[in-house]
């Protein structure tokens, strides 16, 4: 027997009004002060709780701790067997978004490392060379290193990025590792981490010079 309530987006966003319920003052009647009746009541409460929860667990029908948490008693998330999915705007581990050909969108402008208050981003810029598509007008990060131990997960790098190349929408928090050097995320690792929905690209389209709809002045027009 399941009823479902979906809150409309207008109601779902923002702080909701909390409705308080006045609590009665603790009862200090003779029954409570005599200890024994209160003791029996407490034992009954414990037994009932343990019975219900054991039954639900054995039958595999215990309430979902996230979806059904509000009206059905105690719900504990058995971390790490169970995890609460992080909310949509949770700032998780960084990722570098890719272009369609799999190369990084990053143009090594150093905006993120400049904005970073923890100074945890190190970028070594390099030029696209030879017959590479972007050769001659764009840089790329030869190295892109984030020290996830120094990072304070403020999200300033994401805000600073002009190319939507760095994102924190992975929905995962940094895993515990055995040694500190494992927290140094190199470019290849950052590129390989997918977003929350398994995508490696960014939602914002990037139109290269020469492609229809390119907003800037193309080199051909310029020369």
């Amino acid at each position, binding site marked *: 027997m399941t009823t479902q309530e979906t809150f409309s987006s207008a109601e779902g966003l923002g702080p909701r009004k909390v409705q308080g319920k006045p609590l009665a003052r603790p009862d200090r009647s003779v029954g409570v002060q005599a200890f024994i009746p209160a003791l029996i009541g407490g034992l009954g409460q414990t037994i009932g709780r343990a019975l219900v929860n054991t039954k639900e667990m054995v039958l595999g029908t215990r309430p979902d701790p996230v979806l059904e948490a509000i009206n059905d008693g105690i719900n504990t998330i058995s971390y*790490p067997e169970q995890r609460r999915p992080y*909310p949509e705007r949770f700032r998780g581990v960084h990722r570098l978004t890719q272009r369609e050909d799999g190369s990084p969108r990053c143009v090594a402008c150093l905006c993120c490392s400049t904005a970073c208050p923890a100074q945890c981003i190190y970028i070594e810029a390099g030029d696209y060379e030879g017959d590479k598509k972007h050769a001659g007008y764009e840089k790329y990060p030869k190295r892109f290193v984030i020290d996830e131990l120094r990072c304070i997960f403020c999200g300033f790098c994401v805000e600073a990025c002009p190319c939507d190349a760095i994102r924190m929408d992975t929905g995962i928090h940094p895993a515990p590792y055995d040694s500190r050097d494992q927290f140094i995320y190199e470019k290849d690792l950052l590129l390989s981490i997918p977003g929350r929905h398994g995508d490696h690209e960014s939602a914002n389209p990037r139109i290269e010079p020469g492609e229809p709809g390119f907003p800037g002045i193309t080199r051909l027009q310029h020369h």
Partner: protein
Amino acid sequence: MVPSLAIIGIDFLKAFAVAMFAMNVGVILTWVERRMRGMIQDSVGPNRAAIPVPGFVAAGLATGPAFLLAGSVLYLAFGSELPESEDAVFYGKLMLQAGVLVGWVTLAAIARSAQESGARNPLEQAIASLGSPRGIALGGVLLQVALLMIVPLLIGEVLTGPLLLTIGALALAGTAVAGAGHVGAALSSQKTVRITLLGLLHPAADGLKTVFKADFVPPKSDQFLYNLAPWISFFPTLVLLAVVPFGPALCFGKGEDGQIDLSAFQGIEAPGQMCEASRLSLQVADLNVGILYFFAMAGTGIVGAALAGWASDNKFSLLGGMRAASQMVSYEVTLGLTVVGLLMVYGTVRIDEMVLWQANNTWGIFVQPFAFFLFLAAAIAETKRIPFDIPEGESEVVAGYFTEYAGMKFSMFFFSEFIAVVSSSTLIAALFLGGWHVPFMTAEGIIVTIGDSELFRSEVSSGALVALGALTFIVKIIALCVLQVIIRWTLPRFRYDQLMRLGWRKLLPASLFNLAVTAVLILAADGASAGVKESLERAAELSMLGVGVAVIVGALALVVFLFAPRNKRIILATSAARYAQALGGTREAKLEA
């Protein structure tokens, strides 16, 4: 008189069985304590320890016992002489019920898994289309009750013993093999299976871990006493159980040399039959002092705690040891005085005779109800557990008398506390809850008689009665253990002065009052007229009937409780909840990282 080799072997076997019982229940209690405490908050509790085995090995482990069971059942029905014997009907009913039980549990489990994660093959699809898991389980229970009612009516007319046995054996063997085959097929398709035994391996792993932990000994401690204390604490709790009978005594004939003749079995010692020649009691030590031995050994435990506190060279330990000693001495007074009332009623100090008295009349809790609660409170205080765990109150004296202990020595204290719970529960079950006695159990079987009218009669063989008695005793012990654990979960710790006041100014006078009232009542009952005595006997029978009815009503209530559905509301107010719903619920969330 030198006992024969067989008797020595049996004695050794009994001691081994009792020690293993206490230790295993101790381990399970540790598990229950940790796992079920989590259950109050609806969490799983520690269950990370696992033995990974290849899928086909796990399948073998799952199906092996089922095939063994099926084989032995089929042998009983077709290969042995059981069908011709009188027990055929009993075993036939038992097998039929067990087969139906295995059948509906398997069907409901398959339907449940098909409902949760989709059917894997047409067979599962067909089973899932039979009905909801709840409906299948309900149908199974109803079928069992119906069989329980119908089968006795058909016996004699349509059903003969051998036919019933054949049907029962085929049902049990078929359902067991089918269910285990299904489980085995699912397991063998997996590459590795993690065997966790419901999380039971976790306390085992914890216990193993303590063996290898650093054994720190405080440099200025009294080395000898420091090392001795855990043993003094551990050993008495284990040997306490030696004087408790775990089942009715077995009667044997006397051999020509005046010794017990193990080949001449004459039945069990229960209401309606006393042993004439020789008896083989199902307790380790047949001591005349009985319960006094129990108190002597329980008293020794105080020395262990006090020694540990003294020898540790630590002020917290010393305080804890003193608290333990004073508390246990105080509550032992109440414990002893409460038992005196029982001794007056039963007229013996031997626990096996006390149980026999209860089997002949009524359980101790009905003749000494007040003493039961006093004894329970004092026994919990004796085991130094919440709400009386002042000796190890973390907020005041770190860990009390075992603050300085580490590794296996610490776990000996820890374990002895759990075994003390088992042994105190055993004593309470033997003194107040009739020990191995099942209501209306006699030497011939279960015969319900009120006055002169016989309401129900089911004759059971002596072997089955012994098994039933031992099983009942274990159930009573475990129920009392669980009660103590629940008390531990519920109550906050007393303050030290409150504890002492409760012991000396409330429980002790109450136990003296109980003693006086008991004495007066015994005198009154002895001098009462025949009519009053007869009405007392009726009251005893009615109390036993009440126990039986209460057990049946409790079982029914449990079934109703298990089938009661629970209303659930899904509320999608947050993006986390929406993501959880997209994942199919939080309990389906993938393991990451």
